[in-house]
Protein backbone atom coordinates (compact mmCIF):
# COMPACT_ATOMS: atom_id res chain seq x y z
CA UNK A 1 0.00 0.00 0.00
CA UNK A 2 1.30 3.40 -0.96
CA UNK A 3 -0.13 6.70 0.33
CA UNK A 4 0.81 10.34 -0.06
CA UNK A 5 -0.72 13.74 0.68
CA UNK A 6 -0.68 15.82 -2.50
CA UNK A 7 -1.65 19.31 -3.61
CA UNK A 8 -3.47 19.22 -6.94
CA UNK A 9 -3.95 22.37 -8.98
CA UNK A 10 -6.65 22.29 -11.66
CA UNK A 11 -6.48 24.84 -14.51
CA UNK A 12 -9.79 26.66 -15.27
CA UNK A 13 -10.60 24.56 -18.36
CA UNK A 14 -10.80 21.26 -16.46
CA UNK A 15 -11.98 22.43 -13.04
CA UNK A 16 -15.51 21.10 -13.74
CA UNK A 17 -14.42 17.59 -14.84
CA UNK A 18 -14.97 14.52 -12.60
CA UNK A 19 -11.27 13.76 -12.38
CA UNK A 20 -11.06 12.17 -8.95
CA UNK A 21 -13.82 9.74 -9.95
CA UNK A 22 -11.56 8.50 -12.75
CA UNK A 23 -8.77 7.90 -10.25
CA UNK A 24 -11.09 5.54 -8.41
CA UNK A 25 -12.68 3.82 -11.42
CA UNK A 26 -9.76 3.48 -13.79
CA UNK A 27 -6.78 3.42 -11.45
CA UNK A 28 -8.13 1.53 -8.46
CA UNK A 29 -7.05 4.26 -6.01
CA UNK A 30 -8.78 5.46 -2.85
CA UNK A 31 -8.68 9.05 -1.68
CA UNK A 32 -9.34 11.23 1.32
CA UNK A 33 -10.02 14.87 0.49
CA UNK A 34 -8.58 17.21 3.10
CA UNK A 35 -9.35 20.46 1.38
CA UNK A 36 -10.95 21.61 -1.85
CA UNK A 37 -11.37 25.12 -3.16
CA UNK A 38 -12.03 27.01 -6.35
CA UNK A 39 -10.40 30.42 -6.60
CA UNK A 40 -12.08 33.45 -8.20
CA UNK A 41 -10.05 32.90 -11.35
CA UNK A 42 -11.71 29.47 -11.63
CA UNK A 43 -8.53 27.58 -10.80
CA UNK A 44 -9.13 24.67 -8.49
CA UNK A 45 -7.06 23.47 -5.57
CA UNK A 46 -7.39 20.16 -3.82
CA UNK A 47 -5.40 18.60 -1.05
CA UNK A 48 -5.94 14.90 -0.82
CA UNK A 49 -4.36 11.75 0.36
CA UNK A 50 -4.07 9.23 -2.45
CA UNK A 51 -3.79 5.55 -1.56
CA UNK A 52 -3.30 2.38 -3.56
CA UNK A 53 -0.60 0.01 -4.76
CA UNK A 54 2.51 1.77 -6.05
CA UNK A 55 1.90 0.78 -9.66
CA UNK A 56 -1.68 2.14 -9.69
CA UNK A 57 -0.53 5.25 -7.84
CA UNK A 58 2.14 6.01 -10.45
CA UNK A 59 -0.32 5.45 -13.30
CA UNK A 60 -2.89 7.65 -11.58
CA UNK A 61 -0.38 10.44 -11.21
CA UNK A 62 0.60 10.09 -14.84
CA UNK A 63 -3.07 10.49 -15.78
CA UNK A 64 -3.41 13.63 -13.68
CA UNK A 65 -0.36 15.23 -15.26
CA UNK A 66 -1.47 14.22 -18.76
CA UNK A 67 -4.79 16.04 -18.45
CA UNK A 68 -3.09 19.18 -17.11
CA UNK A 69 -3.39 18.87 -13.31
CA UNK A 70 -0.33 20.19 -11.49
CA UNK A 71 0.73 17.80 -8.76
CA UNK A 72 2.93 19.02 -5.91
CA UNK A 73 4.02 17.67 -2.58
CA UNK A 74 2.38 19.69 0.22
CA UNK A 75 5.76 20.93 1.47
CA UNK A 76 5.83 23.26 -1.52
CA UNK A 77 2.72 25.08 -0.28
CA UNK A 78 3.22 25.06 3.49
CA UNK A 79 6.59 25.89 4.94
CA UNK A 80 8.18 27.16 8.10
CA UNK A 81 10.48 30.16 8.20
CA UNK A 82 13.26 28.71 10.33
CA UNK A 83 14.70 32.14 11.18
CA UNK A 84 11.36 33.24 12.61
CA UNK A 85 10.33 30.05 14.45
CA UNK A 86 10.89 30.42 18.20
CA UNK A 87 10.93 26.67 18.84
CA UNK A 88 8.21 27.11 21.47
CA UNK A 89 5.74 24.36 20.62
CA UNK A 90 2.43 26.32 20.64
CA UNK A 91 1.64 24.94 17.17
CA UNK A 92 1.66 21.35 18.41
CA UNK A 93 -1.58 22.04 20.30
CA UNK A 94 -3.54 22.37 17.07
CA UNK A 95 -1.65 20.32 14.46
CA UNK A 96 -4.05 17.43 13.77
CA UNK A 97 -1.58 15.10 12.07
CA UNK A 98 1.54 15.52 14.17
CA UNK A 99 3.39 17.13 11.24
CA UNK A 100 4.48 19.71 13.81
CA UNK A 101 5.88 17.75 16.70
CA UNK A 102 8.50 17.84 19.41
CA UNK A 103 11.60 15.70 19.57
CA UNK A 104 12.26 14.78 23.20
CA UNK A 105 14.14 15.21 25.42
CA UNK A 106 15.81 18.02 23.41
CA UNK A 107 12.41 19.73 22.99
CA UNK A 108 13.19 20.65 19.40
CA UNK A 109 10.05 21.56 17.46
CA UNK A 110 10.14 20.10 13.95
CA UNK A 111 7.92 20.40 10.89
CA UNK A 112 7.54 17.28 8.78
CA UNK A 113 5.70 18.49 5.67
CA UNK A 114 5.09 14.88 4.56
CA UNK A 115 2.56 14.55 7.38
CA UNK A 116 0.90 17.95 6.83
CA UNK A 117 -2.77 17.94 5.81
CA UNK A 118 -2.89 21.61 4.89
CA UNK A 119 -5.43 22.61 7.55
CA UNK A 120 -3.57 25.92 8.16
CA UNK A 121 -4.30 26.01 11.90
CA UNK A 122 -0.61 26.49 12.65
CA UNK A 123 -0.61 29.65 10.53
CA UNK A 124 -3.04 31.37 12.88
CA UNK A 125 -1.70 29.87 16.07
CA UNK A 126 2.06 30.38 15.62
CA UNK A 127 2.85 33.32 17.93
CA UNK A 128 5.78 34.42 15.76
CA UNK A 129 4.05 34.01 12.35
CA UNK A 130 6.64 31.48 11.24
CA UNK A 131 4.30 29.30 9.18
CA UNK A 132 3.68 30.28 5.56
CA UNK A 133 0.95 29.00 3.30
CA UNK A 134 0.93 29.67 -0.42
CA UNK A 135 -2.00 27.64 -1.70
CA UNK A 136 -3.21 30.64 -3.66
CA UNK A 137 -0.10 31.68 -5.57
CA UNK A 138 -1.67 34.80 -7.04
CA UNK A 139 -2.84 36.05 -3.69
CA UNK A 140 0.63 35.39 -2.32
CA UNK A 141 2.14 37.62 -5.00
CA UNK A 142 -0.33 40.37 -4.26
CA UNK A 143 0.39 40.18 -0.52
CA UNK A 144 4.13 40.37 -0.96
CA UNK A 145 3.78 43.40 -3.25
CA UNK A 146 1.62 45.30 -0.76
CA UNK A 147 3.98 44.42 2.09
CA UNK A 148 6.97 45.61 0.08
CA UNK A 149 5.50 49.05 -0.42
CA UNK A 150 4.51 49.69 3.20
Amino acid sequence: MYAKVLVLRFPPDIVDKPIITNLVRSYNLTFNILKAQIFPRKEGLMILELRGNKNDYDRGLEYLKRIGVKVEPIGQSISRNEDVCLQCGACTAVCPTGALHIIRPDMEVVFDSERCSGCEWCVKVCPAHAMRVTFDRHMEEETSISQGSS
Partner: protein
Amino acid sequence: MGFSRTYEEINEKIKSGDVVVVTAEEMTRIVREKGEKKAAQEVDVVTTGTFAPMCSSGAFLNFGHTSPPIKAHRVWINNVPAYAGLAAVDIYIGATEPAADDPLNRIHPGLFEYGGGHVIQDLVSGKPVRLKAEAYGTDCYPNRFVEKTLYLKDFPNATLCNPRNAYQNYNCAVNLSSKTLYTYMGVLKPKLGNANYSTSGCLSPLLNDPLYKTIGLGTQVFLGGGVGYVIWHGTQHNPNVPRNERGVPKSPAGTLMLLGDLKQMSGRWLVGVSMLGYGCSLAVGIGIPVPILDEEMAYYTGVGDDEIVTQIKDYSFTEPEPLGEVNYAELKSGTIRIRGKEVPTVPLSSYVRAKEIAEILKSWIKDGRFLLTKPQKYLPGSSEPKVK
Protein backbone atom coordinates in the same frame (compact mmCIF):
# COMPACT_ATOMS: atom_id res chain seq x y z
CA MET B 1 29.83 25.27 57.69
CA GLY B 2 31.41 23.83 54.58
CA PHE B 3 32.74 25.49 51.53
CA SER B 4 32.12 29.10 50.56
CA ARG B 5 33.25 31.68 48.05
CA THR B 6 32.47 35.38 47.53
CA TYR B 7 31.30 37.48 44.59
CA GLU B 8 34.74 39.12 44.58
CA GLU B 9 36.51 35.78 44.31
CA ILE B 10 34.27 34.73 41.44
CA ASN B 11 34.87 38.01 39.61
CA GLU B 12 38.65 37.63 40.05
CA LYS B 13 38.36 34.21 38.44
CA ILE B 14 36.26 35.66 35.60
CA LYS B 15 38.92 38.31 34.96
CA SER B 16 41.76 35.79 35.02
CA GLY B 17 39.84 33.39 32.79
CA ASP B 18 39.84 30.60 35.39
CA VAL B 19 36.14 30.67 36.14
CA VAL B 20 34.13 27.45 35.86
CA VAL B 21 30.67 28.10 34.44
CA VAL B 22 28.01 25.51 33.61
CA THR B 23 24.38 25.79 32.56
CA ALA B 24 21.62 24.91 35.01
CA GLU B 25 20.89 21.78 32.98
CA GLU B 26 24.53 20.68 33.25
CA MET B 27 24.55 21.53 36.96
CA THR B 28 21.62 19.18 37.59
CA ARG B 29 23.70 16.32 36.18
CA ILE B 30 26.85 17.36 38.06
CA VAL B 31 25.08 17.58 41.42
CA ARG B 32 23.33 14.23 40.85
CA GLU B 33 26.59 12.54 39.92
CA LYS B 34 28.95 14.10 42.45
CA GLY B 35 26.79 15.59 45.17
CA GLU B 36 26.45 19.27 46.08
CA LYS B 37 29.64 19.34 48.14
CA LYS B 38 31.90 18.42 45.24
CA ALA B 39 29.78 20.43 42.77
CA ALA B 40 30.15 23.57 44.91
CA GLN B 41 33.93 23.18 44.93
CA GLU B 42 34.13 22.66 41.17
CA VAL B 43 31.59 25.14 39.82
CA ASP B 44 31.71 28.92 40.31
CA VAL B 45 28.66 30.04 38.33
CA VAL B 46 25.50 28.43 36.97
CA THR B 47 23.73 30.12 34.07
CA THR B 48 19.97 29.95 33.62
CA GLY B 49 17.70 30.91 30.74
CA THR B 50 14.11 31.44 29.72
CA PHE B 51 12.45 32.58 26.50
CA ALA B 52 8.68 32.99 26.42
CA PRO B 53 5.93 35.56 25.89
CA MET B 54 6.02 37.97 28.85
CA CYS B 55 3.11 40.39 28.58
CA SER B 56 4.23 42.81 31.25
CA SER B 57 7.00 44.26 29.11
CA GLY B 58 7.60 47.50 27.29
CA ALA B 59 10.02 50.30 26.58
CA PHE B 60 10.50 53.92 27.59
CA LEU B 61 11.42 55.96 24.53
CA ASN B 62 12.43 59.57 24.18
CA PHE B 63 11.87 60.59 20.57
CA GLY B 64 13.83 63.85 20.71
CA HIS B 65 12.64 67.44 20.77
CA THR B 66 11.24 68.88 17.59
CA SER B 67 11.38 72.38 16.24
CA PRO B 68 9.06 74.05 17.14
CA PRO B 69 8.78 71.90 20.27
CA ILE B 70 5.83 69.62 21.01
CA LYS B 71 4.41 68.28 24.26
CA ALA B 72 3.06 65.04 22.87
CA HIS B 73 -0.43 64.23 24.10
CA ARG B 74 -1.21 61.20 21.94
CA VAL B 75 1.46 59.13 20.22
CA TRP B 76 1.42 56.21 17.81
CA ILE B 77 4.35 54.16 16.53
CA ASN B 78 3.51 52.19 13.39
CA ASN B 79 -0.07 52.99 14.37
CA VAL B 80 0.30 51.33 17.79
CA PRO B 81 -0.69 53.75 20.58
CA ALA B 82 2.07 54.57 23.09
CA TYR B 83 1.46 56.09 26.51
CA ALA B 84 2.35 59.79 26.39
CA GLY B 85 1.36 60.94 29.87
CA LEU B 86 4.97 61.77 30.67
CA ALA B 87 7.20 64.76 29.86
CA ALA B 88 7.10 66.31 26.39
CA VAL B 89 8.68 63.62 24.20
CA ASP B 90 8.90 60.70 26.63
CA ILE B 91 6.62 57.76 25.89
CA TYR B 92 6.11 54.17 26.99
CA ILE B 93 5.25 51.54 24.42
CA GLY B 94 3.64 48.48 26.01
CA ALA B 95 4.01 44.97 24.59
CA THR B 96 0.31 44.08 24.53
CA GLU B 97 -1.02 47.27 22.90
CA PRO B 98 -2.64 46.31 19.59
CA ALA B 99 -2.48 48.55 16.51
CA ALA B 100 -5.13 51.30 16.58
CA ASP B 101 -7.08 49.75 13.69
CA ASP B 102 -6.83 46.15 14.88
CA PRO B 103 -10.21 44.36 14.63
CA LEU B 104 -9.45 42.84 18.08
CA ASN B 105 -11.84 39.98 18.88
CA ARG B 106 -14.71 41.31 16.75
CA ILE B 107 -14.30 38.16 14.69
CA HIS B 108 -13.32 35.68 17.35
CA PRO B 109 -10.61 34.47 17.64
CA GLY B 110 -8.79 37.66 16.60
CA LEU B 111 -5.36 37.43 15.00
CA PHE B 112 -3.73 40.46 16.70
CA GLU B 113 -1.11 40.61 14.00
CA TYR B 114 0.80 43.70 15.08
CA GLY B 115 1.23 45.43 18.41
CA GLY B 116 3.65 47.01 20.85
CA GLY B 117 5.81 43.91 21.06
CA HIS B 118 6.23 43.98 17.30
CA VAL B 119 7.19 47.66 17.41
CA ILE B 120 9.93 46.82 19.92
CA GLN B 121 11.16 43.94 17.77
CA ASP B 122 11.17 46.14 14.65
CA LEU B 123 13.20 48.78 16.51
CA VAL B 124 15.85 46.38 17.79
CA SER B 125 15.99 44.73 14.35
CA GLY B 126 17.06 48.04 12.82
CA LYS B 127 13.81 48.65 10.95
CA PRO B 128 12.40 52.15 10.52
CA VAL B 129 9.20 53.02 12.38
CA ARG B 130 6.65 55.75 11.71
CA LEU B 131 5.99 57.96 14.71
CA LYS B 132 2.97 60.25 14.90
CA ALA B 133 2.35 62.65 17.80
CA GLU B 134 -0.60 64.95 18.47
CA ALA B 135 -0.65 67.77 21.01
CA TYR B 136 -3.06 70.43 22.24
CA GLY B 137 -0.39 73.14 22.08
CA THR B 138 0.93 75.32 24.89
CA ASP B 139 2.82 78.61 25.03
CA CYS B 140 6.03 76.69 25.70
CA TYR B 141 5.24 73.79 23.32
CA PRO B 142 3.32 75.35 20.41
CA ASN B 143 3.64 72.44 17.96
CA ARG B 144 0.46 70.39 17.59
CA PHE B 145 1.47 67.64 15.23
CA VAL B 146 4.61 65.70 14.38
CA GLU B 147 5.07 62.78 12.03
CA LYS B 148 8.44 61.27 11.26
CA THR B 149 10.32 58.10 10.40
CA LEU B 150 12.84 56.98 12.98
CA TYR B 151 15.33 54.19 13.51
CA LEU B 152 16.24 53.05 17.00
CA LYS B 153 19.49 55.02 16.73
CA ASP B 154 17.49 58.23 16.23
CA PHE B 155 15.84 57.98 19.66
CA PRO B 156 18.04 59.82 22.19
CA ASN B 157 17.02 57.25 24.83
CA ALA B 158 15.44 53.82 24.60
CA THR B 159 15.14 51.64 27.70
CA LEU B 160 13.42 48.30 27.98
CA CYS B 161 11.59 48.31 31.32
CA ASN B 162 9.49 45.26 32.10
CA PRO B 163 7.35 45.42 35.24
CA ARG B 164 6.95 41.65 35.50
CA ASN B 165 9.19 39.02 33.92
CA ALA B 166 10.64 35.61 34.69
CA TYR B 167 7.72 34.26 36.70
CA GLN B 168 8.96 31.71 39.21
CA ASN B 169 6.84 28.78 38.09
CA TYR B 170 3.48 29.05 36.29
CA ASN B 171 0.21 27.12 35.95
CA CYS B 172 -0.36 24.24 33.62
CA ALA B 173 -3.49 25.31 31.71
CA VAL B 174 -6.32 23.00 30.61
CA ASN B 175 -9.92 23.34 29.44
CA LEU B 176 -12.76 21.32 30.99
CA SER B 177 -15.51 22.99 28.95
CA SER B 178 -16.89 21.77 25.64
CA LYS B 179 -15.62 24.62 23.49
CA THR B 180 -12.14 25.66 22.38
CA LEU B 181 -10.55 28.44 24.42
CA TYR B 182 -8.10 31.00 23.03
CA THR B 183 -5.97 32.18 25.93
CA TYR B 184 -2.66 33.76 26.83
CA MET B 185 -1.66 30.15 27.51
CA GLY B 186 -2.33 29.25 23.88
CA VAL B 187 -5.19 27.31 22.34
CA LEU B 188 -6.90 25.00 24.84
CA LYS B 189 -8.95 22.33 23.16
CA PRO B 190 -12.19 21.26 24.87
CA LYS B 191 -12.58 18.42 27.38
CA LEU B 192 -8.93 18.22 28.39
CA GLY B 193 -7.73 18.25 24.76
CA ASN B 194 -4.27 19.51 25.73
CA ALA B 195 -2.31 20.83 28.71
CA ASN B 196 -0.19 23.92 28.09
CA TYR B 197 2.70 25.13 30.23
CA SER B 198 5.20 27.96 30.02
CA THR B 199 8.36 27.51 32.06
CA SER B 200 11.85 26.38 31.16
CA GLY B 201 11.84 24.09 34.21
CA CYS B 202 15.30 23.26 35.49
CA LEU B 203 16.76 26.11 33.37
CA SER B 204 14.39 28.76 34.73
CA PRO B 205 16.16 31.59 36.62
CA LEU B 206 14.11 31.85 39.81
CA LEU B 207 13.67 28.08 40.09
CA ASN B 208 17.45 27.85 40.51
CA ASP B 209 17.45 30.37 43.34
CA PRO B 210 14.09 29.56 44.92
CA LEU B 211 14.62 31.64 48.07
CA TYR B 212 16.14 34.67 46.28
CA LYS B 213 19.52 34.30 48.00
CA THR B 214 21.53 35.71 45.08
CA ILE B 215 19.05 37.31 42.67
CA GLY B 216 18.04 40.75 43.93
CA LEU B 217 18.09 44.45 43.22
CA GLY B 218 21.08 45.19 40.96
CA THR B 219 21.72 41.67 39.69
CA GLN B 220 23.18 41.92 36.21
CA VAL B 221 21.42 39.71 33.68
CA PHE B 222 21.13 38.76 30.01
CA LEU B 223 18.10 40.69 28.78
CA GLY B 224 16.85 40.61 25.20
CA GLY B 225 20.32 39.87 23.88
CA GLY B 226 21.94 42.72 25.81
CA VAL B 227 22.85 43.39 29.42
CA GLY B 228 20.11 44.35 31.85
CA TYR B 229 19.45 44.51 35.56
CA VAL B 230 16.98 43.36 38.15
CA ILE B 231 15.66 46.70 39.41
CA TRP B 232 12.91 45.59 41.79
CA HIS B 233 10.70 42.61 42.47
CA GLY B 234 8.12 42.33 39.71
CA THR B 235 4.43 43.12 40.05
CA GLN B 236 2.43 40.29 41.65
CA HIS B 237 5.65 38.99 43.30
CA ASN B 238 4.33 36.57 45.89
CA PRO B 239 6.91 34.55 47.79
CA ASN B 240 4.33 33.20 50.26
CA VAL B 241 3.01 30.27 48.27
CA PRO B 242 3.33 26.62 49.32
CA ARG B 243 6.80 25.23 48.59
CA ASN B 244 8.26 21.74 48.45
CA GLU B 245 11.03 20.47 50.72
CA ARG B 246 13.64 22.10 48.43
CA GLY B 247 12.00 25.51 48.83
CA VAL B 248 10.71 25.42 45.24
CA PRO B 249 7.26 27.06 44.94
CA LYS B 250 4.46 24.78 43.79
CA SER B 251 2.57 27.56 41.98
CA PRO B 252 3.35 31.02 40.53
CA ALA B 253 5.49 32.91 43.07
CA GLY B 254 8.35 35.36 42.63
CA THR B 255 8.69 37.78 39.71
CA LEU B 256 11.30 40.30 38.55
CA MET B 257 11.21 43.84 37.23
CA LEU B 258 13.94 44.13 34.61
CA LEU B 259 15.54 47.05 32.84
CA GLY B 260 18.19 47.48 30.18
CA ASP B 261 19.42 49.62 27.29
CA LEU B 262 17.20 48.72 24.33
CA LYS B 263 19.92 49.81 21.90
CA GLN B 264 22.08 46.81 22.84
CA MET B 265 19.30 44.29 22.33
CA SER B 266 18.37 42.18 19.33
CA GLY B 267 15.35 40.99 17.38
CA ARG B 268 16.36 37.41 18.07
CA TRP B 269 15.74 37.83 21.80
CA LEU B 270 12.87 40.34 21.78
CA VAL B 271 10.20 38.94 19.51
CA GLY B 272 6.75 40.42 18.96
CA VAL B 273 4.17 37.65 19.22
CA SER B 274 0.45 37.24 18.46
CA MET B 275 -1.62 34.95 20.65
CA LEU B 276 -4.72 33.90 18.72
CA GLY B 277 -7.89 35.28 20.31
CA TYR B 278 -5.93 36.87 23.17
CA GLY B 279 -3.69 39.65 21.94
CA CYS B 280 -0.18 40.84 21.23
CA SER B 281 2.80 40.29 23.45
CA LEU B 282 6.58 40.17 23.50
CA ALA B 283 8.71 37.06 23.87
CA VAL B 284 11.63 38.07 26.06
CA GLY B 285 14.92 36.24 26.41
CA ILE B 286 16.34 36.32 29.94
CA GLY B 287 19.39 34.67 31.44
CA ILE B 288 20.51 35.08 35.03
CA PRO B 289 23.81 33.88 36.48
CA VAL B 290 23.63 32.21 39.87
CA PRO B 291 26.88 32.38 41.85
CA ILE B 292 27.73 29.18 43.69
CA LEU B 293 28.55 30.88 46.99
CA ASP B 294 28.29 27.68 49.01
CA GLU B 295 27.01 24.12 49.01
CA GLU B 296 23.49 25.35 49.54
CA MET B 297 23.53 27.23 46.20
CA ALA B 298 24.93 24.11 44.52
CA TYR B 299 22.01 22.19 46.02
CA TYR B 300 19.47 24.75 44.76
CA THR B 301 20.93 24.96 41.25
CA GLY B 302 21.04 21.16 41.13
CA VAL B 303 17.25 21.11 40.92
CA GLY B 304 15.85 18.83 38.21
CA ASP B 305 12.60 18.91 36.24
CA ASP B 306 11.22 16.08 38.39
CA GLU B 307 11.67 18.22 41.53
CA ILE B 308 9.60 21.16 40.29
CA VAL B 309 5.83 20.81 40.40
CA THR B 310 3.02 23.08 39.28
CA GLN B 311 -0.76 23.13 39.51
CA ILE B 312 -3.08 22.05 36.71
CA LYS B 313 -5.64 24.84 36.34
CA ASP B 314 -8.90 24.85 34.42
CA TYR B 315 -9.12 28.00 32.27
CA SER B 316 -12.83 27.58 31.43
CA PHE B 317 -14.01 28.75 34.88
CA THR B 318 -15.72 25.38 35.35
CA GLU B 319 -13.53 24.14 38.19
CA PRO B 320 -11.95 26.75 40.47
CA GLU B 321 -9.72 24.27 42.34
CA PRO B 322 -6.55 22.83 40.76
CA LEU B 323 -7.13 19.52 38.98
CA GLY B 324 -3.91 18.16 40.36
CA GLU B 325 -0.19 18.63 40.55
CA VAL B 326 2.34 17.74 37.86
CA ASN B 327 6.12 17.97 37.63
CA TYR B 328 8.12 19.32 34.69
CA ALA B 329 9.67 15.96 33.83
CA GLU B 330 6.13 14.68 33.29
CA LEU B 331 5.16 17.79 31.33
CA LYS B 332 8.24 17.45 29.12
CA SER B 333 7.51 13.75 28.47
CA GLY B 334 4.67 14.77 26.11
CA THR B 335 1.60 13.41 27.93
CA ILE B 336 0.20 13.59 31.43
CA ARG B 337 -2.82 11.94 33.08
CA ILE B 338 -5.65 14.17 34.28
CA ARG B 339 -8.82 12.65 35.72
CA GLY B 340 -7.87 9.34 34.16
CA LYS B 341 -7.37 10.82 30.68
CA GLU B 342 -4.12 10.89 28.69
CA VAL B 343 -3.58 14.55 27.79
CA PRO B 344 -0.89 15.78 25.39
CA THR B 345 1.28 18.57 26.80
CA VAL B 346 2.22 21.72 24.89
CA PRO B 347 5.07 24.06 25.83
CA LEU B 348 4.77 27.81 25.12
CA SER B 349 8.20 28.57 26.52
CA SER B 350 11.03 27.66 24.17
CA TYR B 351 13.34 25.19 25.87
CA VAL B 352 15.71 25.18 22.87
CA ARG B 353 16.12 28.97 23.06
CA ALA B 354 16.32 28.98 26.87
CA LYS B 355 19.26 26.61 26.60
CA GLU B 356 20.85 28.84 23.96
CA ILE B 357 20.59 31.83 26.34
CA ALA B 358 22.22 29.86 29.17
CA GLU B 359 25.04 28.95 26.75
CA ILE B 360 25.47 32.56 25.55
CA LEU B 361 25.63 33.86 29.11
CA LYS B 362 28.12 31.11 29.92
CA SER B 363 30.36 32.25 27.07
CA TRP B 364 30.07 35.92 28.10
CA ILE B 365 31.25 35.03 31.61
CA LYS B 366 34.00 32.69 30.39
CA ASP B 367 35.28 35.39 28.01
CA GLY B 368 35.49 37.85 30.90
CA ARG B 369 32.86 40.15 29.39
CA PHE B 370 30.25 39.77 32.11
CA LEU B 371 30.88 40.09 35.85
CA LEU B 372 28.55 39.07 38.66
CA THR B 373 26.93 41.71 40.85
CA LYS B 374 25.93 41.33 44.45
CA PRO B 375 22.38 42.49 45.15
CA GLN B 376 22.07 45.93 46.75
CA LYS B 377 18.82 44.81 48.30
CA TYR B 378 17.18 41.40 48.48
CA LEU B 379 13.73 40.61 47.13
CA PRO B 380 10.74 40.34 49.46
CA GLY B 381 10.61 36.82 50.91
CA SER B 382 14.33 36.33 50.55
CA SER B 383 16.13 34.40 53.19
CA GLU B 384 19.18 36.61 52.85
CA PRO B 385 22.56 34.98 53.12
CA LYS B 386 24.01 35.33 56.61
CA VAL B 387 26.86 37.81 57.00
CA LYS B 388 30.00 35.80 57.46
